[in-house]
């Protein structure tokens, strides 16, 4: 018999129950006659406080609240990919079937389809000793991903019964495990896990491999490691969502968990439509086949917004346990922080900075620390990388969410308003951004791309930094009075900005660029710099160098050289040589 309580007070998404109900902290409850989903967030001797994940309009004092006995959990099993859920893992397409175009309240839908039969191939047999994480069955979940069913963490014993290979639903027992104390447990394809608790792993590895995104400014200048964390802060209109979409589309992660937390409904629709049509460059299958979406749009109940981040994270950890590299796009963590603030205000807690609760920093750190490259319980290696968008108030990076996030992430991709106004996309500013992974990843770049890679990358950044200090002077006195070598630095910096950093997400070739091409582009730009510098050193003025269109040609490389034709770069090097000879000849 489940414990119950009686509603006493209602204040927006927060309700109070009178007396000691015996509920547990973080327990999931059903509220009122409509069975709205809620979670226990506070207990005292006299009152129990519950946050409700659905609109509370129409609730009355006196209605009953029933405890479920479980913490707020997600259901883990095949069917998560190629699906879209709300903040508490209810599939939106099922909700649409039942309630039409609007999301009504108290919807009781199964997280995963209980009737669908999956092709199950058993990988264990009777007599095997198993423990938490052991893979017991493989299921082709989508065209791209093989789902691996595992023994739940903390279960250990010997298999005494297995099902035959065949078709099963998520609730059919697949194997029976006998614990060492003799008790027997049936293991099914679907298992529950509480969202606020990280799934256990054996150990954590240091960052060693980059998450390749195909975006030049990220991969080359500010790379993120697999299992790493990155923050993308920016005012509205600077391209946070666009950056996240690009990474979700083109990164070399096996699985993408896209969390739309308090953002626009049309954006989720767009992801759904686009990812249902676009091909995954790695497998050729649809992008949706490796993606799951968590949508809590800005007009959906605020308490579920707070939960949506954890729901997404737990799904990601589950796939990591199978040995996959998972990338989470959280758009936007600021909305999540604001949901915390809103609930904290309703609870009349003492506010800290800008009304945010004092525990904002600890919640943020707990969230980002769940990322990592791990050795799983079953010995496989998997990673969860978190890329969190931050929407700072007024585009001001000194506000609490950005500042606290900065403390816990190792990659910072600061979006800049003035770049966005000039339609320089991605508007990631090279002076404010940083990546602490560069040293960790240097060996990988050396082995996999080129030994010169890191050196070239540093040269490129140095040119951009020189440009920035030169621009201070130019702003005061104009560029005409600069000496020619400085004019050259400005010109090369322009080539870097337009030809390398700027990337056109709508151009079929330019939207995703392989590492090899990124490297060659850098090489050609730096080669041009070297040759021009030599000319300047011989006393040639910049105006003569500019007569040639070589600078424009190098800028256009991103469009003119297809990603699969690296040999064309030789022609460009030759063109630079010709340019050098021509200038020398003419002005000797």
């Amino acid at each position, binding site marked *: 018999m489940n414990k119950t309580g009686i509603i006493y007070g209602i204040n927006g998404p927060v309700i109070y129950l009178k007396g000691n109900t015996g509920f547990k902290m973080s327990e999931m409850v059903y509220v009122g006659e409509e069975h709205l989903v809620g979670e226990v967030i506070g207990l005292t001797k006299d009152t129990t406080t519950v946050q409700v994940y659905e609109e509370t309009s129409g*609730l009355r004092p006196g209605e009953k609240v029933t405890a479920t006995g479980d913490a707020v959990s997600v259901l883990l099993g095949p069917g998560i990919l190629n699906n879209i859920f709300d903040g508490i893992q209810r599939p*939106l397409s099922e909700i649409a079937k039942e309630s039409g175009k609007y*999301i009504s309240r108290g919807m009781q839908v199964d997280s995963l389809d209980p009737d669908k039969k999956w092709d199950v191939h058993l990988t264990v047999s009777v007599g095997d000793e198993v423990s938490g994480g052991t893979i017991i069955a493989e299921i082709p979940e989508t065209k791209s991903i093989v789902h691996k069913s595992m023994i739940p963490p903390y279960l250990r014993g010997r298999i005494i019964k297995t099902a035959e290979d065949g078709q099963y639903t998520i609730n059919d027992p697949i194997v029976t495990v006998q614990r060492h104390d003799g008790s027997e447990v049936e293991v099914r394809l679907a298992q529950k896990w509480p969202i606020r608790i990280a799934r256990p792993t054996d150990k954590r590895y240091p960052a060693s491999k980059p998450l390749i995104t195909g975006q030049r400014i990220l991969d080359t200048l500010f790379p993120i490691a697999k299992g790493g964390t990155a923050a993308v802060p920016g005012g509205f209109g600077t391209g946070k969502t666009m950056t996240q979409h690009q990474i979700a589309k083109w990164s070399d992660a096996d699985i993408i968990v896209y969390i739309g937390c308090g953002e626009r409904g049309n954006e989720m629709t767009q992801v759904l439509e686009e990812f249902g049509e676009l091909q995954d460059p790695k497998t050729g299958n649809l992008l949706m086949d490796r993606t799951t979406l968590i949508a809590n749009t*800005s007009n959906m109940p605020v308490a579920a917004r707070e939960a949506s981040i954890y729901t997404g994270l737990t799904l990601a950890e589950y796939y990591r346990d199978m040995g996959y590299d998972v990338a989470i796009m959280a758009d936007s963590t600021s909305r999540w922080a604001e949901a915390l603030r809103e609930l904290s*205000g309703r609870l009349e807690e003492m506010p800290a900075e800008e009304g*945010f609760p004092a525990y904002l920093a600890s919640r943020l750190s707990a969230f980002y620390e769940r990322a990592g490259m791990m050795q799983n319980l079953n010995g496989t290696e998997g990673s969860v990388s978190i890329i969190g968008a931050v929407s700072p108030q007024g585009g*001001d990076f000194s506000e609490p969410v950005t500042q606290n996030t900065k403390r816990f992430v190792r990659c910072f991709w600061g979006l800049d308003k003035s770049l966005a106004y000039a339609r320089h996309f991605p508007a990631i500013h090279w002076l404010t951004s940083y990546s602490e992974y560069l040293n960790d990843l240097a060996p990988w770049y050396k082995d996999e791309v080129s030994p010169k890679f890191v050196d070239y990358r540093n040269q490129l950044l140095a040119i951009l930094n020189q440009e920035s200090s030169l621009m201070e002077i130019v702003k005061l006195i104009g560029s005409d009075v600069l000496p020619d070598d400085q004019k050259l630095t400005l010109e090369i910096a322009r080539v870097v900005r337009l030809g390398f950093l700027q990337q056109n997400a709508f151009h079929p070739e330019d939207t995703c660029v392989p590492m090899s091409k990124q490297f060659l582009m850098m090489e050609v730009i730096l080669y041009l710099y070297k040759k021009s510098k030599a000319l300047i050193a011989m006393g040639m003025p910049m105006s003569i160098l500019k007569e040639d269109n070589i600078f424009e040609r190098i800028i256009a490389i991103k*469009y003119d050289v297809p990603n699969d034709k690296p040999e064309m770069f030789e022609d460009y090097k030759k063109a630079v040589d010709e340019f050098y000879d021509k200038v020398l000849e003419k002005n000797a």
Partner: protein
Amino acid sequence: MAIEYLGLSEVNGPLVVLEDVKGAFFDEMVEFRMDDGTRKLGRIVEIYEDKAVIQVFEGTESMSLINTHTKLTGHPMEINLSSDILGRTFNGIGQPIDGLGPIISDTKVNVNGLPLNPVTREYPRNYIRTGISAIDGLTTLIRGQKLPIFSGNGLPHDQLAAQIVQQASLGDDTDEQFAIVFAAMGVKYDVAEFFRRTFEESGVSDHVVMYLNLANDPVVERLITPKVALTAAEYLAFERGMHILVILTDITSFAEAMREVSSSKGEIPSRKGYPGYLYSELATLYERAGIVKGGKGSVTQIPILTMPNDDITHPIPDLTGYITEGQIVLDRQLHGQAIYPPINVLPSLSRLMKDGIGEGYTRVDHQDVANQLFSCYAKVGDARALASVIGEDELSPLDKKYLLFGNAFEHEFVGQGPLENRTIIDTLEKGWELLGMLPKEELDRIDTKILDKYYKPTEVKAEV
């Protein structure tokens, strides 16, 4: 038979407290009747066992602790809807004020609305021609979009909104049904009158539903006005298959009203005294724009927002910008130069534009031209800053060209007559004409093929 409660236990600003109520629910509507016969409406905003905190829409004037009779209505805020609402005028809580009698209908709809399921939404792709170059060319409005106008006091945002309404609604697709839902929150009488007159003059009055909460109307009423208007808009769009353009003015008054009520409820304030749920509240308004799969209609929103002290980082424009799909920003400096509409294109943006323009929608070069104009105009700012330091004469020839381009862009592309209705082709040609003032190698955002096809140098005129 509903019970009537006599008396109140507390009156505090727009809120009253009623004790010993039975069976009341959160968000329920209540009716008040004073001894002198005046009636008011209220909504339960907080409830503790048998104690209800009620927000009174018409203000608490003349209410006392003993003279008030309160009746629970048993339902949340609802309005009657039918297609008869077209051409009618209502007050801020949806009661007719044009003397034509009540709306009779079986369709009663809860004004709070429900969130649209992202799965059933259709991604907006059809552009709306407004005839205004700065909007059509650079921040294209898409059907089903929410695109606010960020303005300031004294700037011609009303005129711009009226021009959009006139030119967009009477567009090319005459077979499709359109209507305008106009919601005024705390605006001056003159403003409401201006819109009414404009609708009349352009002959669209029959297709307009007006919800008016004027500056001297009760403040709390303002909180419900946009919800009432959007409920009507959703009804007309999704039940009647019409294309609805919703004008909400002024969002700032709405947010101020929210702050007022929040502070009298004794809630913990967040930024600038606004309640922590300002974002969620604004989102529940703006997110009610869109298109539903399989449906015929659409809801397009143009909220107008006067930025306090022209500050775009103020919480109201800031939070709005994070929810809406772009923004059109008006600029006092342009206005000072008598440029109409004074749209500052650099901070303006339309997020849905990229999918609704180009080949098959407008013209293949649209996106490139827009990007290039943005990028060149951004450089104009640098050239101007330099000119103000070293003087115009000292500028390089290229920077001088940029100055000329900037002036021409502001006066000829952005600037246009309040009745001038440009086609998209006019706008794009104008754009090319301006780009022609700059050397071809400066145009780095345009695909080489498109550049070769459309670029032709323009004779640079002397000082504008």
